[in-house]
């Protein structure tokens, strides 16, 4: 029974990882940029949720659309002002630029909100859990998982069924050919970065009732996000979702069997093994 509980918890936390990883993989797949600022975008999403609650009294799930739209704008703005100039450059410059953006967002958060841990109490959900037999499912975590699933399906639908989505995939596959067909590549990038950022915002909203926010909260989650992205196959949206759940479960099981201290080592060692043995990931990067 305990193992099932561990599995359930792993799957649920995996949903949050998935939500972050889907955004990373989308940007990576379409723009070929490893976005090291994705964790900070999640952090911004968390603070924004907190702010909307403390200032306007909005329930985080009510604030969801506001945060998502705001983060879309932030991501698009980051592309328009900064990333646009480096899409043609090597990945070193891109990575360092996104690192710089991350440092700026982190410092700004520290200056505005201070370094303390702030959490959000929402009465209907706090400590609330659904108990089935001896299995307990945290409602906030369940909500996060459901949102992650819906967001992934919505994104897959967008990529597969709409002209904008097809243009994103076409740009991912062959940027020059896309240009020759009249696809405005920079606008596609802008939208991609906006969606990637909005997904980080969504993850932030869903995480806020689970976990306290502080300026460097994104760093650790981002690293796990990278593991998930590589596991799922760079650029594969469905792979990122699946990878998120796998990593969530692996982390939980390793934590239970070997102790929490070892679970990080296990996760990152697994990461190296995947990189070396199957760098294309479990699903080849063909969704984007």
């Amino acid at each position, binding site marked *: 029974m305990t193992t099932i509980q561990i599995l359930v918890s792993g799957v649920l936390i995996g949903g949050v990882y998935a939500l972050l990883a889907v955004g990373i993989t989308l940007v990576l797949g379409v723009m070929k940029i490893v976005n090291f600022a994705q964790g900070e975008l999640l952090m911004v999403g968390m603070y924004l949720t907190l702010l909307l609650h403390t200032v306007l009294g909005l329930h985080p799930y009510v604030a969801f659309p506001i945060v998502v739209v705001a983060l879309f704008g932030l991501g698009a703005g980051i592309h328009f002002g900064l990333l646009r100039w480096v899409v043609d450059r090597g*990945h070193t410059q891109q990575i360092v*630029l996104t690192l710089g953006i991350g440092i*700026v967002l982190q410092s700004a958060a520290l200056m505005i909100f201070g370094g303390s841990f702030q959490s959000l109490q929402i009465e209907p959900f706090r400590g609330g859990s659904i108990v089935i037999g001896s299995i307990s499912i945290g409602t906030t975590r369940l909500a996060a998982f459901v949102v992650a699933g819906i967001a992934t399906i919505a994104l897959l639908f967008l990529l597969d069924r709409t002209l904008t989505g097809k243009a994103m995939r076409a740009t991912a596959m062959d940027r020059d050919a896309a240009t020759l067909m009249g696809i405005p590549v920079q606008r596609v990038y802008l939208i991609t970065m906006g969606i990637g950022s909005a997904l980080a915002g969504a993850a932030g909203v869903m995480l806020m009732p689970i976990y306290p926010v502080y300026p460097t909260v994104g760093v650790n989650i981002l690293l796990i996000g990278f*593991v998930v992205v590589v596991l799922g196959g760079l650029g594969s949206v469905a792979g990122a979702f699946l990878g998120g759940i796998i990593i969530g479960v692996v982390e939980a099981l390793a934590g239970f069997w070997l102790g929490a201290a070892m679970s990080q080592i296990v996760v990152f060692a697994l990461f190296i093994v995947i*990189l070396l043995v199957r760098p294309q990931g479990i699903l080849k990067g063909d969704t984007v």
Partner: protein
Amino acid sequence: MSQQIVNRSSGPIDPMVRSRPLPKHSLLIGFGVVAIALLAFVSSSAPVFYGHMIVMTLIYAALATSWNIIGGFAGQLSLGHAAFFGLGAYTSSILFVDFGISPWIGLLIALLGGATLGLLIGIPTFRLRGPYFALATLALGIILLNVAVHFRELTGGHVGISLPPTEGWGTMTFLNRWQYVVIAGGYLLVCLLISGIILSNRFGYQLAAVREDEEAARALGVNATRVKLLAGTLSGGLAAGIGTIYAQYILFLTPDSVLGTAVSIEIIVLAIVGGSGKLYGPLLGAVLLIPAGQLVLREFGGALPGLHTLVYGVIVIIVILLFPRGIWGMLTDTAALINRRRKHS
């Protein structure tokens, strides 16, 4: 043989290979020694803050210069360079504290350890390209950090290792700072010399060829894997050595302070801002950013927390956008432009 072919090829490496005469290594040594002497004098009489600033600048300059061999010359974005730095710091400190082995011997063992780690990490990871390599090295750095945290009997875990403040040249521990300036400055000079020698040799051209286009380099007969492994070994060894000097200076080690991802990122930022791939780029980056960071932290740290990292981040963004070849690259470009103008007029 391959060097000639590379020389004749028309890729972007061409101007760089052609325009560089053999570095005057003796000049570098001469001026380096004078500069170190001057800095040592300054640090012995200046307030501690400035002495500390000089030592930290030299340490980070050496670290970024060592990263440059693999990250700049060979173009392999290593995001886990703190692994070598930390390995060196822990190796000599554990040998010193637990076995009483002098840090000087510890330094040599650290060099060997770092070089070995560079080789061992390189063998599997150099097969990976672009962002994959960057992510793999990032993960390796995190694994080493977690190992240091986990194996507490050896490393003290997060509690860290506190080194005995026994003064003297034999223990590489001093009350004053000028000795550290001499040691770290001398080490930096060695790093620069090795880098300079690499750049002016066939090895340097081969690294440049691998950086610009690995497939093409292989086609031209460059053994890319071997070249990268050698660069990784040298880079790792040099980074580990500076770890020992750092440990003997700060006298206190924690996993986060020497193995943290933040350390790796700082190294890259210094090199990229200064100009990665250029001999003096990382040094320039350290000279500009480390004192700037320390000054902002001192002036505003208590009142405006976050300002010093904000300044850092903004500088990184501006340099990447405006001077993609780093500040050193921008300066040499400008100098070349002025020269050309002067010739024309």
